[in-house]
C-alpha cells in the first residue's frame, strides 16, 4: 500500500513557480511575480490530472473519505471540489514522516474495515462506511479498538476542510461568500433590531 514519496521534479517546480520566482530578480526591478503565473502553475493542463503522491487506489480512498466528511448536500461536496487533488499536492511536498503517518492511517482504515466487515473500505456499502467513520468522530466515546484511527480521522478531516473551503465550490456555492467585493460604501449591520439605543 505504501509508495515511496517520489516527486516529479518538473511538476514540483511548476507548482512552486509562483512563490519561488522572486529570489532571482535584481534590485532595480519590482519584487512581484506575474499574477497569472501563480494561477497558471496550479492550473489543469491539457492532460488529465494524475496524483503526485497517491497511488490510484489511495487516491480513490481519500476521495471517498473526503466526500463522506463533506458530502454533496444542496451544494456539491468534496469530490466535486476535487479536494483529493489538493490533499495529494500538499502531501507530495511533506516530510517523509508526515507522508508515512498519513499512509499508515489509510492502512489502518482498511485493516479496521476488514475486522468489522471483512472487506476493504472502498468495497463497503455507504451505510457501513458512515458507521466506521462514526466510530472515530466522537472524541468523547471512542472504543479502545478504534483509538488508533482517531488521529488519522482528525488529520484527514482537517485536510478536507482546508481543501473544500478554499475551493470555488466551498467559498462561493456553499458559504455564499460575499467578501472581496469592492464596495463604494460600508453599510454594516442591516438589522435595526441588533442596534442599541445609542449606537
Amino acid at each position, binding site marked *: 500500500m505504501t509508495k515511496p514519496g517520489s516527486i516529479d521534479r518538473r511538476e514540483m517546480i511548476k507548482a*512552486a513557480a509562483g512563490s519561488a520566482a522572486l529570489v532571482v530578480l535584481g534590485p532595480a526591478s519590482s*519584487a512581484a511575480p506575474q499574477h497569472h503565473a*501563480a494561477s497558471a502553475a496550479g492550473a489543469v493542463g491539457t492532460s488529465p490530472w494524475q496524483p503526485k503522491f497517491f497511488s490510484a487506489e489511495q487516491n480513490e480512498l481519500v476521495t471517498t473519505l473526503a466526500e463522506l466528511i463533506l458530502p454533496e448536500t444542496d451544494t456539491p461536496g468534496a469530490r466535486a471540489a476535487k479536494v483529493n487533488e*489538493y490533499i495529494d499536492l500538499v502531501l507530495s511536498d511533506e516530510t517523509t514522516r508526515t507522508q508515512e503517518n498519513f499512509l499508515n492511517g489509510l492502512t489502518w482504515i482498511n485493516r479496521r474495515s476488514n475486522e468489522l466487515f471483512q472487506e476493504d473500505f472502498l468495497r463497503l456499502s455507504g451505510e457501513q462506511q458512515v458507521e466506521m467513520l462514526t466510530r472515530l468522530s466522537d472524541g*468523547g466515546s471512542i472504543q479502545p479498538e478504534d483509538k488508533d484511527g482517531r488521529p488519522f480521522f482528525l488529520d484527514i478531516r482537517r485536510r478536507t476542510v482546508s481543501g473544500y473551503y478554499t475551493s470555488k465550490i466551498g467559498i462561493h456555492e456553499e458559504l455564499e461568500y460575499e467578501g472581496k*467585493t469592492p*464596495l463604494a460604501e*460600508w453599510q454594516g449591520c*442591516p438589522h435595526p433590531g441588533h442596534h442599541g439605543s445609542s*449606537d
Partner: protein
Amino acid sequence: MATTLYDAAIVGTGATGGMAAKVLAEKGMKTLLLESGPSISSADFLTHSMPYDFPFRGAGSPSKARRVGRPAASERTPFVGYHAENDQHPYSFPKGNPWAWSHSRILGGRTLHWGRQSLRLAEYDFKGASIDGYGVDWPFTYRDLEPYYDKAEEYVGVQGMTEGLPQIPDGKFLPPFAFNCYEHLMKKAARKMGWHLTALRTAQLSRAHRGRPACHYCGSCGSGCDVGAFFSTVAVTLPDALATGNLTLQTDSVVRHVLVDGEGRPKGVGYHDRLSKDYREAFAKVVVLAGSTLESTRIMLNSTSRQHPNGLANSSGVLGHYLTDHISVGNIEGALQDLVGGKILNEDGKSNGSYIPRFQNVDSKNRDFIRGYGIMVKGGAGSFPGHALDFDGFGAAYKRRIKALHPAMVNVYARGEPLPVYDSSVEIDKNLVDHWGIPALHIHYKRTENDEKIRKHAFDSMMELMHTAKVEILSARDSLSTPGTINHEMGTARMGHDPKTNVLNAYNQAHDAKNLFVVDASCWPSSGCQNPTLTMLAIAWRASDYLAEQFRKGEL
C-alpha cells in the same frame, strides 16, 4: 567617484523610518534612506486574489514553509522580505524560552501588512511609574506628544468613534466604519458588564483623504493594499519624501554597523549589497536608526569601537535591556446564538473589529495587578470557516452546522501591558551570523508575575463577556502568547533624562552621541497596552522636528 556626504542617513523604511524621511526631507535636509530589502510598490500586490488562485491555496508549499517559515512562504505575498525568511535572518534564544520574531525586510517594512490599529497612549501610560511605582516614567508627557498625535492622525487618516475615555484619548478621526451585527450585540453585552465598546481605530480611509482614495472594503489588507487606502510607507510617507527632491532612496542595502571617526563620533554606516553581499559605506552628518526595535539595537551592539566598547552609545549599559512584547490572552471563540442560521453577509470587507479599552486601574486600583489590558472583539463571516475544526462530526449535518455558525462567529482576545525588566534582554550571539555574515541576536525574554495576574483576570473577564452575549463557546485558550508573537517589540534602547540609566534623551537623541538618533520603538521605557504604531509615528515626527532644528542651528 565622489562620495556623497549626506546631511542625514536613515536606516529602515518602516513606520518610523518613513516618517523621519518625510520630515527631514521636507525640512530641506539632504537625506539618504537605506532599506535592507528589495523595492516594492502598491501596484505589485495580489490584493484581490482568492485562495483557489494558488496551488497551495495561499498558504505556500510545506517544504518552503519549513525552510523560510510559514509567513514567508505565503503565495498571497510572494515578495522577498515581506516576511523575513528564517534561513536568511536567524536568531537564537535559550532552550525552553522561545522568542517568535516575525519581522519584515522589504521597502515599507511591516507597514505593508500591519493591523493598522491606531490608538493613543494616555497620561496614565506615560507616567506609569509616578502612578504605581513600577519602572520609570517617560521623559515627556502626553501633553508634549499631543500636538504630534494630532499631526500624525490628520496626516495618516484614522477612522474611529469619539468616546471621551481618558484611557484612550480621542483623536482627529475620519468617520468610523459602521458596526457589523456581532459588534452591536457585543456592545450590548459589554454595556451590561459596565464596559465601553468602540470601533477599533485603524489607519484606514473611510473617505478620500489628502489625495489618497478611500478604502473599497475588499477585506484584503493582509495581502497589501493596491490603492494605498491604509497607511504604509510606500503609499504615504515615501512619496511625500521623494517629492521634495531631497531624498535618495537606496534599497537592497543591509546595514551592518554605524561608522565612527577617531573620536567615536558617528559618521555614516557600513552595509552589504543584499544580492552581491559586497561591503560598502555611506557617510552622513547625522545617523538615524529606524530599523525596528531589535534591528536598531542589533546594529548598535554590532558597532563597537574604542570609545564605545559595549556597543554604540552604551555607556549606561542598558542597551539591549528592558525588552517587552505585548501579551495576548486567548483567544476565545464562539457563536452568538442570536445570529446562528442567519443570512451570510459581507462582513470582512472593512477588515476591522471593535475594542473594549482598559477598564482596570481606571476608576479604582486593582488589588492584584498594575497597568492592564484592552479586549479586541473580532468576528463576522469571512471566507474560511475556522470554527469547523472546533467541534466533532462529519457528513451532511457537520457541513450544515459549519454553515449555520458561519455568520454568528465572534472571537475575543486581550492585549495587555508587560512590565519591562532589566533581564529581559538581547545581546549579540557570537556563534551565529546571518546571510551577510552580520552577527545575529540572542533574545532572552523575561515575564513578570504581573503578566500572569493579567492573564487570569483577562481570561475570566472575557468568558463572562461571552456568556453575557449568549455565545456558545467553541474554543477557549487561556494561555499567554509566546513572546514576540504579537509583533510589538518595545524597549532595548530606552529613553530617559539620566544618561547613566538610559540610551536616549527625550528627543530620541543618544546621550553619548548627539548626532545619533534612534526613532523606532526601541526607545520605549514602558509599554502601555495599546497598539504602538501611532505613538511611534508621533514620536518619530517629534524627534525629527527636533533633529532638523538642531541641525539648522549647527548643534549636531
